[in-house]
């Protein structure tokens, strides 16, 4: 078993290196650093975004950079997008951190909501008949489409970024839960009720474990949706977070003015992929631990 694992991960590593190699080759072949930045540019953008704006010069000093019009120092790459971001005090770590927090919040609030709703609909035929059509309607509206409307009610606050994330997560969590209760848990419910189980015992010891695997399976999808919505909301209406970094900072209309730097975008995308992958791995591990009893 161990040897297979090593073989597979070696192959995987080889493919990864091949990917990086292929990209470098394509980049140099295309020779269009403004469209396909060479790996070095990407590395420079990465270091610039990680280190952030460097300390202000000591009083009395007159650095050449200041005289040439740059109002700040930083190491590495200097492009329109990088400069705008650093001017606003944006760093890669901070952006990733903020986005992660938003995603976690969305999951923490949205998952219970969606699961409760799914449990209710799956358990009661009557509730299902009444609520399912409403659910279908609610699900059809992309949460990010609501963002401007929410802003009218709640103003420019964190709420109008978080609400779409919670909404998207809740909507996604309903279906696996519903399916888990209706299809998977049904026969166990019959057996348990014939043994006299009712109420909270039924919920905690029968419904939740029976529907558990289905719900946990949907968790990974909810995570992906949460990231998607968070990044989208940040691209539209935030001055922090990964979405903001990708679009180049600045508010609303001025976002289009900043010239996008593909190196920054690639750095951002890689960071997002890494974060998403990490969360997914945690979810997978948690699922495996919680469903050891599954055949």
């Amino acid at each position, binding site marked *: 078993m161990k040897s297979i694992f090593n073989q*597979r991960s070696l*192959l*995987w590593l080889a*493919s*990864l290196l*091949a*990917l990086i190699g292929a990209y470098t080759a394509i980049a140099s072949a295309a020779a269009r650093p*403004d*469209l396909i930045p060479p790996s070095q540019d990407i590395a420079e953008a990465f270091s610039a975004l990680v280190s952030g704006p460097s300390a202000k010069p000591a009083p009395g000093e007159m650095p050449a950079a200041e005289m040439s019009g740059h109002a700040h120092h930083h190491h590495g790459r200097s492009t329109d997008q990088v400069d705008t971001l650093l001017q606003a005090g944006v760093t890669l770590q901070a952006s990733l951190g903020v986005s992660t927090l938003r995603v976690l919040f969305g999951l923490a609030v949205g998952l219970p909501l969606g699961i409760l709703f799914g449990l209710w609909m799956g358990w009661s035929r*009557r509730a299902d*008949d*009444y*609520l*399912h*059509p*409403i659910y*279908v*309607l609610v699900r*059809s*509206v*992309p*949460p*990010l*489409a*609501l963002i*401007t*409307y929410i*802003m*009218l*009610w709640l*103003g*420019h606050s964190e709420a109008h970024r978080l609400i779409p994330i919670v909404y998207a997560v809740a909507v996604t969590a309903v279906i696996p839960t519903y399916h888990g209760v209706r299809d998977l848990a049904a026969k166990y419910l019959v057996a348990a009720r014939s043994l006299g189980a009712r109420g909270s015992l039924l919920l905690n010891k029968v419904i939740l474990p029976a529907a558990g695997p289905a719900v946990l399976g949907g968790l990974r999808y909810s995570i*992906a949706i949460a*990231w*998607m*919505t968070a*990044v*989208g909301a940040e*691209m*539209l209406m935030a001055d922090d977070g*990964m*979405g903001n970094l*990708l*679009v*180049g900072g600045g508010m609303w209309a001025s*976002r*289009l003015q900043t010239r*996008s730097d*593909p190196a920054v*975008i*690639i750095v*951002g*995308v*890689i960071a*997002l*992929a*890494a974060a*998403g*992958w990490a969360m*997914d791995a945690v979810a997978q591990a948690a699922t495996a631990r919680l469903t050891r009893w599954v055949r």
Partner: protein
Amino acid sequence: MGAVRIRRAALALLALALVYGVAAEVAHGRLPTRVWMGAHFVEDVQLLPTYGSLAEEGAFLVESRILPDSIVVSSRRVLEGLLLGSIAGILLGLATGWAASVQYLADPWVTFFRFTPALALLPLFVVWFGYGESSKVLLIAAGVAVITLLGAHQGVRRVPRVYLDAAAALGAGPGLRFRKIVLPLAFPSIFASVRIAAGLAWVTIVVAELIDARMPSLGYLLALSGAYPRVPTMLIAIATVGALVLAFDLAALLLHARATRWMRRSA
């Protein structure tokens, strides 16, 4: 669908419509009409427009052809992206599922793109393809391709070995086995992923059009109505997007029913 279920569904939807209508009428004149837009106040904003004003606005949007044109443009982009992405994704997914060697080669790429929200690539696509049709359609295609790739891949991998072994024992070569056994059995998984991808395509297009707002499109309509703001238009735009998502989903369901009927006949 039993009569009871249809009745209850209709009741629920009616109740919802009624609640909104009542809330809008009650709120009329009571809710604040002055909204802070980040830099300034705007007057005369109906936070909960009544059915009357919605109907009025709706009529205007339809007559002036703003709404129909937007619907056509956005739907076309979604369809093109869906088609392009599905074909690419399904072909790649079938390949990685069927041939293990291809799978190991493609794995890092797939893993990488799987965790990248399609929207994150929007700025990159704009850099590469400019502001226009292609960047949006290709963005949707990229997101769709990842999902359908996974769907096709899993569909192929989940075909029970027994069927393939039985076919091989009867002398069927790999080509025949693939066409007559793998494809039909992988179909449900592929189709499910296309349905999910369609929903995602709509999410992507709305945001892409919101950011790169150009007339006419639903996203632009949404952005414009948000900028002024004109709430009735905003709600109509949101409702239109929702209705289109539903329509696409229903079409997918119908297609699925048609396709499985065809498959059963030719099998």
